[in-house]
């Protein structure tokens, strides 16, 4: 029954990883590079939510602030840097994303200080099912994550711009000759990827403590989930995030708390070795 509790904890953690992986896989699939600034986008979202929550006392306002602010910062990163590097090699984009990550972290460190900050959320009595305890907060967070996921998938699969994004991910040149304007697609992509990372950051911030480094530390699990799910597959990213979250939690009694991230790395290597295209990816992706 102890493991049932870990399973529940893992699912909430998995939703955070899944959202972060979704942000990575969208950018990787459409803009074609692994965005190492995703973790620091999350941190940015967490601080935005924290500030709004302090000012208004409302978690919903915090979430709105995270979505808007992180979407905007992500779009700015695209307009100022990534767009101008679009024709260059993947390493240019990759190094630039590291640079942006460092820059965001530095700005947050100077603006908010390096002390740990927490969301002041009221404690509430957990629901008890047998020996499994679920806090109302976890349920709320899960609801927020699921709502965010539903929205993203609705945009991707039900709207014209979502269809265009998937078309560009599928075949950029074919999309262009079909009359899809790449610029609009990219703007939508970066807004979406940023907002999703912002939500992930806020959730992680509410679950743990916020520091300027805390998003960066999620980068490895998020990349692992994106690769496990198959690069470019939004469904895969979320499913893999949930799997990874549960595996990390359930294995904690065996491997210890500190090796959670190392475990993500081992899983990443195993996936790359055995099935580089991941669970839902296409064949040509990784090699």
């Amino acid at each position: 029954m102890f493991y049932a509790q870990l399973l529940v904890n893992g699912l909430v953690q998995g939703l955070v990883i899944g959202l972060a992986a979704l942000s990575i896989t969208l950018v990787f699939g459409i803009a074609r590079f692994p965005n190492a600034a995703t973790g620091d986008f999350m941190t940015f979202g967490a601080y935005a939510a924290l500030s709004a929550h302090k000012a208004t006392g409302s978690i919903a306002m915090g979430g709105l602030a995270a979505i808007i602010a992180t979407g905007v910062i992500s779009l700015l990163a695209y307009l100022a840097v990534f767009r101008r590097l679009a024709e260059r090699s993947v390493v240019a984009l990759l190094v630039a994303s590291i640079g942006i990550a460092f820059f965001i972290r530095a700005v947050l460190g100077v603006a908010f200080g390096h002390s740990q900050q927490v969301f002041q959320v009221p404690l509430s009595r957990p629901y008890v099912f047998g020996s499994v305890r679920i806090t109302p907060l976890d349920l709320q967070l899960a609801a927020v994550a699921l709502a965010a996921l539903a929205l993203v998938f609705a945009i991707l699969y039900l709207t014209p711009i979502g269809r265009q994004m998937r078309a560009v991910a599928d075949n950029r040149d074919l999309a262009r000759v079909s009359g899809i304007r790449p610029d609009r697609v990219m703007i939508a992509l970066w807004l979406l990827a940023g907002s999703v990372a912002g939500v992930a950051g806020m959730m992680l911030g509410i679950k743990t403590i916020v520091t300027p480094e805390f998003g960066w530390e999620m980068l490895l699990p998020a990349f692992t989930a994106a690769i496990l799910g198959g690069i470019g597959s939004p469904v895969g990213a979320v499913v893999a995030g949930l799997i990874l979250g549960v595996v990390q939690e359930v294995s904690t009694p065996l491997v210890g708390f500190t090796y959670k991230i190392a475990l993500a790395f081992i899983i990443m290597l195993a996936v790359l070795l055995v099935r580089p295209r991941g669970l839902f990816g296409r064949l040509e992706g990784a090699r």
Partner: protein
Amino acid sequence: MEAYFIAIGIIALIYVILSLGLTLQYGLTGLINFGHVGFFAIGAYTSALLALKGVPLVFSFAAAAALAGLAAWPLGLVSLRLRDDYFAIVTLGFSEVVRIVITSERWLTNGVQGIPGIPRLYEGLGGSAAQLAVLVTVLAVTLVGAWIIRRIAGSPFGRLIEAIRDNEEAVQALGKDPARFKIQVLVVGAALAGIAGAFYAHYITYIVPDQFIPLVTFYVWMAIIMGGVGRVSGAIVGTAILMLFLEGSRFLRDIVPGVSEVDMASVRIGAVGLLLVLFIMYRPQGLMGDYTKR
């Protein structure tokens, strides 16, 4: 003052050795190694721990190089058949895992408390003479390293790895297996980083996991990008600028009142980020790079 310059010189040369490894891996072969600090850490801890057990430093240095190189080998086997960007993620993850392991395995590495009292090189000479001897030794190793890399660049092997960088499919079509050469390059670069780590450990005499954060990797990246990718002269010039930047920021903190060490660390990280972005955007060939190509 003289002691200060010797100290700066030693640290700068350690960074040059690190940049030489990355020049071989990225500059010549195109391997995006984002985990350089992992090999640096393995070298530092290996040599420090062996030396404290009484192993002569010559052997502990050799072990540092060997172990760092050895760690690179399976990593290369797993990931070098994949696309470049995957390799970048895997190496970044590797260096983080190295840091987690040295933080967690207290029985071996003393965890976050770190390892104090690592023996210095030439301890018998004492004082400034020993410092100077260390400087000369690091310089000699750096020069040998630079010479080897220039030799490699001019050899058939060098032309092959540059061909891998420029067009991997073409190399494959000629019947060569790029992965094999990439693994060799990865191992040699990692061994160089291991030697740099050993010098670092025996010079600083006190190592903790926090000295081996990914920022160090990107200091080295910054150095080779600023200096000019793929050139030994670029690695040296870039490292000189890096040292000016690191020491300058320390100096600045001392004269500007009211700036705490953590704030200065933030400013430093921010400046590294900004410089990486600006150089990539506006001067990708670096200061010493070939101006005729882009």
